[in-house]
């Protein structure tokens, strides 16, 4: 090997190593979820002799992951769709109109980027208690829509600012109302950004842990992350079933990741501004 090839060769090895270290825990977890406890003791990298799907049945039914999964889906849908619609509207207002207080209102919406959930979770808990929303999925959906507004407004405003204004003017000349222009002309043009925004909302909501931990004590309203935590504490040594539960949480994320990798990188780069 010549000197010119050694550098890249080492670089590739380091990169592949970094990649392996990043994904190995997930691979090992999937493998563990399909083994018996006995098999697991013998080796963690080996393939399961006979896939133990019953681990999933056990996690899904006895571990209530079925319920947690359903709750997570309801909360994600209940957060992502209204958040996208509402940030489309706020982003559009800031991008298209000139109005009194626009600057101050925009700054107000962006405040959410610097205020972490931890800073407001205690009063939020008592607010939800007063509203009789504790131990319900509403306690997860409503605050998370609110917390999505800052990032959503920021991104959607950018998206609409990038649409050439002639397009919008043409629609206005045609007599379309601003509402029609928004949903029939602007929204389709902003679709890449809408996708990125929705994807980030999905991941944040799917992964949210502190809020459900605090506001919902009743296991009936647990989402996957909190469900996994309590499940792990109760079943400490039954690794294959815990691994099955863990796999149920991360497979949807992996699927999203494989389908929308480009938007995801975009979102992560943009999302860096969100604290």
């Amino acid at each position, binding site marked *: 090997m010549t000197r010119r090839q050694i*550098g890249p060769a080492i*670089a*590739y090895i*380091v*990169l592949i190593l*970094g990649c392996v270290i*990043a*994904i190995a*825990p*997930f691979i*090992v*977890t999937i493998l563990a979820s399909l083994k018996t406890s006995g098999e697991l003791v013998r080796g963690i990298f080996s393939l399961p002799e006979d896939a133990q799907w019953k681990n999933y049945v056990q996690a899904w039914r006895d571990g209530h992951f079925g319920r947690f999964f359903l709750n997570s889906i309801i909360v994600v849908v209940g957060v992502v769709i209204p958040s996208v619609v*509402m940030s489309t509207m*706020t982003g559009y*207002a800031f*991008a298209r*109109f*000139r*109005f009194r207080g626009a600057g101050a*209102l925009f700054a107000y*919406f962006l405040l959410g980027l610097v*205020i*972490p959930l*931890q800073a*407001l*979770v*205690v*009063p*939020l*808990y*008592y*607010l939800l208690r007063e509203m009789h929303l504790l131990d319900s999925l509403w306690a997860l959906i409503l*605050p998370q*829509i*609110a*917390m999505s*507004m*800052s990032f959503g407004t920021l991104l959607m405003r950018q*998206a609409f600012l*990038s649409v*050439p*204004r*002639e397009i919008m003017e043409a629609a206005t000349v045609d007599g379309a109302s601003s509402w029609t222009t928004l949903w029939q002309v602007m929204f389709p*043009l902003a679709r890449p950004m809408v996708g990125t925004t929705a994807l980030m909302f999905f*991941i944040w909501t799917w992964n949210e842990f*502190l809020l459900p*931990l*605090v506001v919902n004590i009743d296991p009936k309203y647990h989402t996957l992350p909190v469900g996994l*935590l309590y499940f792990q504490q109760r079943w400490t040594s039954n*690794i294959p079933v*815990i*691994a099955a539960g*863990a796999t149920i949480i991360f497979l949807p*994320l992996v699927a999203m990741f494989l389908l929308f990798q480009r938007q*995801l*990188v975009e979102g*992560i780069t943009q999302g*860096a*501004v969100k*604290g």
Partner: protein
Amino acid sequence: MQAPSSNEPGELIAGATSLVAPVAPRRRRGLSGGIEPYLYLLPGFLVFTLFVAIPTVGSIILSLTAWNGVSWDTATFIGLDNYIKAITDHRFQIAFWHNIVLVPYFVLLPLVIGLVPAAVVHQLQLRGARWLQAGLFLPYIMPGVLIGVVWAWILNPIFGPVNKILKQLGFSPPTWLGDFTWALPTVGMIGAWAAYGFCYVIFIAGLQKIPSELYEAARLDGANTWHEFVSVTLPGLRREIAVVLSVNLINALRAFDIIKATTDGGPGDRTQVMALYMINTAFGSRQAGYGTAIAVLLAVITLVGSMLVLRLFGDDDD
């Protein structure tokens, strides 16, 4: 006409205005729509105000009271006492110190592990690296609880694979997360593992924006790879380094999910951190006022820390 494909905030806005400028030079951008813009803002404004703004103000007020969190009439105004109590509270001091100890693990380690390969991939123009990038940032999108649960198993002293292998090799490994000395560094390493792919992705994105002429010029000057790294790559990535530093710092100071799922602050208080102590105080020991004061301190410390980083490493209006 096509919308510009770039989604960089600065470029987008610049692009949009440059598109507008030649067409309508005298016209200010935006229509005045009377009441319309306010109607568009209304739903978002209401939900944001109710569930973010009001609780934030509530935090400040609550932090000035002594309250057990049960019925409102038991709350009493005590001024800044909660803050004074926090500063002199030994357990809070320990928690704060542990957050500081986590900083090298959560901030510097992933920065270096992410920066070096990113620079190498870019400078040597490695092919196929895009494909590896996918695997690298997978941990970053995973829930902290999941990361905690998986690592708690992998590092479990009795049935975890790591210690099994180490024992076979003749070592006598510590119990990691259960060990008084090792627990905090172990949590730190898990945090570093979760973050390095994120740093890599941000740096790779930033490197695309460095004009290749700069590298060519450096090469003409006889620069080797190291010189290119120091004189072109590092200065070109200044903004990204600032972003990564501040995001990682925020994660170190607010650390909660991974710690809750691995050690829950233990053994003893060896991995106690501010966020965990805040939740336990506010809800566990029913000191809502005091817990909220800790939450406000946590938010302020985080904000000051990240502003400081952005100030020190961010661009000074170049």
